[in-house]
């Protein structure tokens, strides 16, 4: 089956006095139907800009400079602004990290859900929309939905607000849900509830999900496919089981080593030295080279291509797999 979403050679840049600064730099990804793609990376790796590029919501002075975003074969970058408005919320919906900033504080939540539905259905009566809004709240397991419907965002807990956002996002039965750090601001028990809900809703509706997160635990729990991003590029991608069982890119290794684990005692965490390079001073070759312990002179020459290291598993590293680079000892 062909994938639902295909991103090809996407490049998003920000204009500056010193020329274009890339935030997303030549990214190829695909999202299978009914599955979840997890995008992992630290702040500044371009994971949020990637999702905003798909939605064509890149803030000025940024713009998508090159590439294609194919949703069911249709290039979203070719659509008119009016056409794109039908896609947003209709076929592709998005939820964000902080539900409080995404909800309007002066309107009851029910009204806001109805507003989202109205944007895609001008014919339905208000009564009909209210019923559908209530059903949407029920579906995201908000208890006493009828009472909650007329409450304001500040009267709800963080977890409830995120449920409202999900209800709103799913109101028009999108094919793709982009969830940008949906549980980062939530407590761990509430995070577990929301992830559980997202998984059930995916099973019910067959939608695809792009899950953007910095938490490797969340990715392991939710994603079928994983893409690890670093400084605007994909460092490694493959199925979740493959990435965790056989990580190839040194950056992926560093991330795995940085996370304390409950099933292991380690005297010291394997931290990655240094920090992510700023997008206006990117290394010419491999962008991870300055922090990489396996780096050799050749890493500085040119950006490494994303190559297939195992079936369906790609890594952008000329030293991968690291155990074959054992001239290290020298």
């Amino acid at each position, binding site marked *: 089956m062909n994938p639902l979403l295909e991103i090809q050679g996407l490049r998003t840049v920000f204009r500056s006095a010193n020329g274009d600064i890339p935030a997303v730099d030549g990214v190829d990804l695909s999202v299978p139907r009914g599955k979840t793609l997890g995008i992992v990376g*630290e*702040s500044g790796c371009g994971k949020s800009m990637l999702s905003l590029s798909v939605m064509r919501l890149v803030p000025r002075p940024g713009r998508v400079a090159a590439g294609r975003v194919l949703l069911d074969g249709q290039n979203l970058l070719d659509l008119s602004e009016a056409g794109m408005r039908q896609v947003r919320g209709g076929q592709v919906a998005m939820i964000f990290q902080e539900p409080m900033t995404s909800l309007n504080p002066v309107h009851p939540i029910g009204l806001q859900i109805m507003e989202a539905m109205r944007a895609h259905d001008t014919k339905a009566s208000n009564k009909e929309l209210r019923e559908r809004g209530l059903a949407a709240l029920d579906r995201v397991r908000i208890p006493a939905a009828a009472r909650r419907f007329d409450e304001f965002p500040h009267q709800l*807990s*963080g*977890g*409830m607000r995120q449920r409202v956002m999900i209800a709103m996002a799913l109101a028009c039965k999108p094919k793709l849900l982009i969830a940008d750090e949906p549980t980062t601001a939530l*407590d*761990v*028990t*509430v*995070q*577990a*509830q929301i*992830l*559980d809900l997202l998984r059930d809703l995916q099973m019910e509706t067959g939608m695809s999900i792009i899950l953007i997160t*910095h*938490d*490797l*635990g*969340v*990715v*392991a*729990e*939710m*994603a079928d496919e994983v893409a690890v991003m670093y400084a605007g590029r994909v460092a490694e991608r493959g199925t*979740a*089981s493959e990435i*965790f*069982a*056989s*990580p190839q890119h*040194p950056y992926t*290794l*560093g*991330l*795995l*080593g*940085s*996370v*304390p*684990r*409950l*099933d*292991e005692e*380690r005297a*010291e*965490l*394997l*931290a*990655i*030295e240094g*920090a*992510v390079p700023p997008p206006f001073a990117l290394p010419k070759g491999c962008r991870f080279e300055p922090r990489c*312990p*396996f780096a050799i002179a050749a890493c500085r020459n040119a950006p490494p291509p994303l190559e297939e290291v195992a079936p369906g598993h790609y890594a952008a590293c000329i030293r991968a*797999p*690291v*155990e074959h680079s054992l001239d*290290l000892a020298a």
Partner: protein
Amino acid sequence: MTTLLEVENLTKHYPVKKGVVLARQVGTVRAVDGVSFRIERGETLAIVGESGCGKSTTARLVLRLIEPTGGTVRFDGQEISGAALRTLRRRVQVVFQDPYASLNPRLRVGDTIAEPMEVHGIGTRESRAARVKELLGLVGLAPFHAQRYPHEFSGGQRQRIGIARALAVQPELIICDEPVSALDVSIQAQVVNLLKDLQRRFGLSYLFIAHDLAVVHHMADRVAVMYLGQIVETAPKRAIFDRPMHPYTRALLSAIPHPDPRRRGMVKPLGGDVPSPMNPPSGCRFHTRCPFVQDRCKAEMPMLRELAPGQQVACHFAEVLPPHEAVAENGMSPVAAQRLALYAAAKARKAAKAA
């Protein structure tokens, strides 16, 4: 081991008022409600819990940044009050969560780090400047960084500056209030390693406030779990993670997603939200969400009881609950573990070459 900090029955109630001119008290928020714990010299005690459980308020009460409603705090055997506060403030330091908000943007980093020494009248201008250079080295920054301003640093570097400032007056206890939760994963690991290294070198004690149990697992010697202003379980780290006895501790542990797809679907969400601390449930405060709730839990508040050496639990039925399935010790896949070992070796070689 000797006890460094002893907190007994610490309480902070905030009145809730209604009306502007004739404000009537209409309720009380029991932010911290009878919390007791002790920290030994050289030990790390972690307080964990979800937002609103009172863990940060507890930290502030220990520091006397806010006045407690009741209870006592003893530091090194001496009760903290008026005159003793000044010495306490030297011997107890704090590192805050937000490295952007906790540094003065108008001060050069060197002046920020020297300020606590100045306040406590330690050293001369020259000796303080030398000490600043030494401190910067200790936290992995360079001497020339003293001349720079906070905005020139990344989040991880700012947290290092915050740690250097805390170390400046040679404290015995450092209260770390979510010191790494605002940082990226790779930077978080650097700062956690730094805190552990400093503890080894200077015999520091930490009161470590956190919500991330994996970080706590790595840092703490003992753990206290808070829920709605009260400690529900306290135990040595091994016991908390291998044999948690309170249903809330168990719920917290089973809610953590592991970085391992082989364990997918084992996360068990706990229903409901934390109730409002203004109107805490009767009896056991956890009874509204507890999967093992009985009638007695709704009526009678459970006290902390010692059920295993060093393990105290506030649950009527802790002994008769079904056993907890601890995280199996399967760790990382062998291939990943081998590559990680290579990474560690290569990193050490690179560091040796640079030195």
